[in-house]
């Protein structure tokens, strides 16, 4: 398990670095020589070619701070040219690709619904219920889900409202909307970070990858063949969403978001530019994934939404979607009801 965690940490670090390298690649337009060397050159030039300040201007363009009596972060920096790269990537590459990826995913989900509709159970429900999610699990899930939705909607307003909503609402009304979006985003953000950490530990045990997941993955859970592929309590798709979405994207978007949210730790502009690009790109990928997850949990699969709402699933549903888990419950390896108070209040028949 430790080896697995360390591998996943390496993967997530690689993803973050890939984002970072894109942003930094074009940022190295600073001075070609060390500042002391440039100062020496300027001394020479003042004697040899008076009024030629080229070495000084070379220095002004890098993020080399001069002296200033004005207090604050980077007040001694004359020109910080990373902003130009940030502007190009933020308004261009990241927003354009990320934005269209989001639109494309909505179309894919729509097309998928047109193709499959809501996938119904093949067998009639038995009426015997199994507890799939405890109250703690559901609360962790819904706190994450609600905070995520607020952040996604407010984030989309801030990122794309300029192009889409200003022509509709006009400047003043959109400014109120954006103020609301920014305030919600900034205050709900830290809550989301806390809730993904809790959700991670709540669902960690049943999301460990197993050999059986590989089989599910190569056949997309039997989506195209129509064959039944057994899975554990969580199938490979759900596990990918857990590790890739909740963990990797959670860390990428969460950490970059906290950097942006608390500017009172003396972050420089280059840090903020990088954090913003990582946050924008990462959150758009997160939203693309979430569209798929939300679709499967609501419209796509009958019984999935009520499972997370009530915590209960029918035995037929469990057998059809998570057979290994169902067999374990039947064999008594996993208790059918894990909530203790619930057992006492209303005994649910699991073995009749």
């Amino acid at each position, binding site marked *: 398990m430790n080896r697995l965690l360390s591998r996943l940490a390496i993967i997530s670090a690689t993803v973050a670095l890939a984002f970072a390298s894109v942003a930094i690649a074009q940022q190295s337009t600073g001075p070609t020589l060390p500042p002391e060397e440039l100062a020496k050159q300027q001394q020479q030039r003042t004697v040899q*070619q008076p*009024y030629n300040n080229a070495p000084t201007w070379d220095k002004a363009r890098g993020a080399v701070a*001069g*002296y200033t009596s004005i207090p604050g972060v980077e007040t001694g920096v004359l020109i910080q040219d990373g*902003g130009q790269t940030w502007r190009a990537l933020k308004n261009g590459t990241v927003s354009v690709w990320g934005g269209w990826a989001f639109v494309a995913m909505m179309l894919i989900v729509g097309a998928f619904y047109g193709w499959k509709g809501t996938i119904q159970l093949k067998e009639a429900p038995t009426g015997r219920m199994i507890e799939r999610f405890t109250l703690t699990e559901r609360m962790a899930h819904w706190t994450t889900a609600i905070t995520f939705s607020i952040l996604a909607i407010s984030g989309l307003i801030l990122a794309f409202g300029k192009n889409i909503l200003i022509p509709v609402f006009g400047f003043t009304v959109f400014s109120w909307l954006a103020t609301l979006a920014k305030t919600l985003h900034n205050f709900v953000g830290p809550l989301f970070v806390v809730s993904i950490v809790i959700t991670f530990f709540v669902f960690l045990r049943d999301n460990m990858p197993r050999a059986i997941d590989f089989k599910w993955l190569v056949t997309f859970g039997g989506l195209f063949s129509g064959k039944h592929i057994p899975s554990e309590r969580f199938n490979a798709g759900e596990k990918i969403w857990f590790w890739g979405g909740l963990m990797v994207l959670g860390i990428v978007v969460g950490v970059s978001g906290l950097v942006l949210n608390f500017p009172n730790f003396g972050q420089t502009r280059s840090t903020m530019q990088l954090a913003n690009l990582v946050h924008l790109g990462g959150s758009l990928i997160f939203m693309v994934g979430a569209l798929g997850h939300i679709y499967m949990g609501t419209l796509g699969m009958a019984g999935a939404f009520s499972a997370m709402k009530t915590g209960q699933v029918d035995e037929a549903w469990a057998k059809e979607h998570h057979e290994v888990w169902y067999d374990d419950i039947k064999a008594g390896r996993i208790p059918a009801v894990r909530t203790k108070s619930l057992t006492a209040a209303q005994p649910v028949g699991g073995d009749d």
Partner: protein
Amino acid sequence: MARMKFICDAERCIECNGCVTACKNEHDVPWGVNRRRVVTLNDGIVGAERSISVACMHCSDAPCKAVCPVNCFYTTDDGVVLHDKDLCIGCGYCFYACPFGAPQFPQAGAFGLRGKMDKCTFCAGGPEKDTSKAETEKYGRNRLAEGKLPACAEMCSTKALLAGDGDVLSDIYRERVMRRGRGGDLWGHATAYGVKASAAPAPVQPAPTQQKS
């Protein structure tokens, strides 16, 4: 129509911070915000020290304007980049984008919560009615509407900092360069075209031929 610009002559700036003080006084700038600042490069290194007064440069293709999520920036007919504080949401994007560090935010709450952005207005106020009370309270004095130029440049004791129509400023600066008899800050001129001996203030070594600029 005039195209308003700033020029700061590094040969003249003596780092007195008169421009900074003039600006703060003229506009009652919010606490913690400095619309203008003087930066000294190679501070204390004889023969290499140069000072520059920097504020919003009112860019032609302003990065702040390009990244603002609520489109609160606008460029006046004079080429001055102004913003509407009623629309500003305090997101900080303009500050990330600006190469000169011009946009600044008064702190509005704990954890560095940003208030409405404040920056140099070229003494041209904001979108409200010229010289109205609302405009003065939000953006400071509108000197351009009064037929005056920015206070910082007016105050500059050595006339290092010039503000006004770009064509007029170019003429003044060109004349200075001609009087100096050298390329001045037109980078690489002295190296490319040689140095006029008569204008040299001190004995000049022949420029080494291998030196690049």
